[in-house]
């Protein structure tokens, strides 16, 4: 099986990923949405672990997390759900969440469960690189799970090179200094400087990407884009996910 990095590189400048919160709008929605996305034109999928205090997230993702927790969602339940569908999924899927969820689960247990659930990459925005290297890397390596780190247009070149060195999937470039779902304009010049750095990892742009126009702009600058809040807002409104999810993805991708 090809790695996520290979898949992204093969699909250069045309990768679309979406983020959704596990357990939203219903606890059982996780597997349903994963199944629909797997059959859609999306390239890879980010599954959000709902958390009570998501510091980097704007209101849309916050609300979806609050609802998911009310629905009884937990990391334990998420791993169970992933276990049920992992053999039916052909697209790469990642986990994205906050460090406290991982710590409460147990660091080693978390990486082991990821591995058992077909998760090869995780995104933990509040896990700093040095802390990952110190406390997590041994387990992550053992269970063949690797982190994706966030960089911003203001991240120093030195740090970006360090992050590139230890990353195995892609670099998550935040569109600007913003929480998720904010209508901020993509910082074109700063992003060009980063994508021109000859990194070994592909660069995917996220935060504030909401429509086809943003997606095309991100693809013109980097290897693709991640849509979170706009996708979740669509799910929250949808009365027919089977129809609306593929529609949303095709509309963004223009396919």
């Amino acid at each position, binding site marked *: 099986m090809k790695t996520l990095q290979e898949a992204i590189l093969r699909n250069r400048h045309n990768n679309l990923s979406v983020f959704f919160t596990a357990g939203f709008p219903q606890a059982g929605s996780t597997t349903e949405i994963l199944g629909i996305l797997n059959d859609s034109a999306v390239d890879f999928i980010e599954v959000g672990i709902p958390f*009570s*205090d998501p510091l980097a997230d704007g209101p849309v993702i916050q609300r979806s997390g609050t609802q998911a927790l009310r629905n009884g969602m937990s990391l334990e339940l998420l791993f169970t759900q992933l276990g049920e569908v992992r053999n039916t999924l052909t697209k790469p899927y990642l986990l994205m969440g906050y460090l406290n969820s991982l710590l409460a689960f147990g660091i080693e247990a978390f990486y082991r469960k990821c591995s058992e659930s077909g998760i090869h990459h995780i995104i933990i*925005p*509040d896990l700093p690189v040095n802390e990952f290297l110190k406390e997590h890397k041994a387990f992550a390596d053992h269970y063949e799970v690797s982190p994706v780190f966030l960089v*911003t247009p203001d991240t120093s070149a030195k740090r970006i090179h360090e992050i590139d060195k230890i990353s195995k999937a892609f670099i998550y470039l935040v569109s600007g*200094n913003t*929480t998720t779902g904010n209508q901020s304009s993509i910082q074109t010049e700063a992003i060009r400087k980063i994508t021109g750095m000859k990194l070994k990892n592909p660069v995917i742009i996220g935060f504030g990407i909401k429509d086809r126009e943003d997606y095309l702009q991100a693809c013109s600058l980097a290897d693709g884009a991640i849509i979170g809040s706009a996708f979740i807002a669509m799910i929250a409104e949808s009365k027919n996910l089977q129809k609306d999810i593929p529609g949303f993805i095709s509309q963004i991708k223009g396919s």
Partner: protein
Amino acid sequence: MKSYTLISNGYYGKFGGAYIPELLFNNVDELQKSYKKIIASAEFQKKFKGLLKDYVGRPTPLYYSEALSEKYKARIFMKREDLNHTGAHKINNALGQALLAKMMGKQKIVAETGAGQHGVATATACTLLGLSCVVFMGETDIARQAPNVARMKMLGATVIPSLSGTKTLKDATNDAIRYWINHAADTHYIIGSVVGPHPYPDMVTRFQSIISKEIKIQLRKQTGESEPDYVIACVGGGSNAAGAFYHFLNSKKTKLVGAEAAGKGVHTHETAATLTIGSVGIIHGAKTYLMQNGDGQITEPYSISAGLDYPGIGPLHAFLHESKQATYLAITDLEALAAARELIHLDGIIPALESAHAFAVLPKMKFRPTDIVVINLSGRGDKDMEAYLKFIL
């Protein structure tokens, strides 16, 4: 100024650190690199000391209570932080950080507030120094602390209601951090307690350490001893306690006692006694004790006192607790109210509900008659009249 327990990379033992999204890396990194140097500079020290003396009204008195001493058979003093401008110790930190922000070239300040004391102190410091000020406050707290909301607005601050979570201090802190992410370039975040990512716990402790510095000098003058047998302070995030403990952290003689809020009891679900019922995790960018469920979701605290109503605790206190360098007792709402009633009737002082928790430690202790006990009276009770009218009159 010594830093007894903070090791070089921002941890107190295993507690502390800076667990922040990359979006805040540059801001926090800039602070980490510059705060000690700026605070130590002659320019900062001159301005800060001048303001603490002539604007805040420091040094605050160290008052010997004959009535409490007689009742509890010890020599009981209280440090009168309630006499500071704006009514609590919070101004020590707000003014220090506002001055620091100004010297770092930031024009805008964001802060969170629970009861409104830190919000009022920050709005005051910003007015004085010509900085613009945004304060996040939980919608629930806005409703129950109307006079402080009016004060902040009068001082020119923009008060934004936090609508996330249960709309209290934890959520206001989340929203202040999110605002900082979105306005990173020109804004400094003035956190109100010894919580948050490194360097906040250490920086706020330094600004509050003036409390124990003065206690030492005043105690020597009044008793001939510069180290008390006990220092007692209430702990929410823990800034007044950190300040009151600081210069006694290395003392072999002084026993440090923190009072956390048990709310309706540590075995009820309505409590804020983080060290008693919490476990280690990450809250607001620091590794420390926090109240959480088995899935790592942060749970809602409860205390009659809005200032102690926080589900985490500063990493310094987590460290002092775990290394047994300080003792933390859980004080219920009713015990705090009884202590407030006693202080009002014996000494004619209406304490903040937060500070009343520290006084509630007295009946739980066994003192020797020669023991010198210093209680930090961190704030005054004007803001708590509603609760007092209901429970004390």
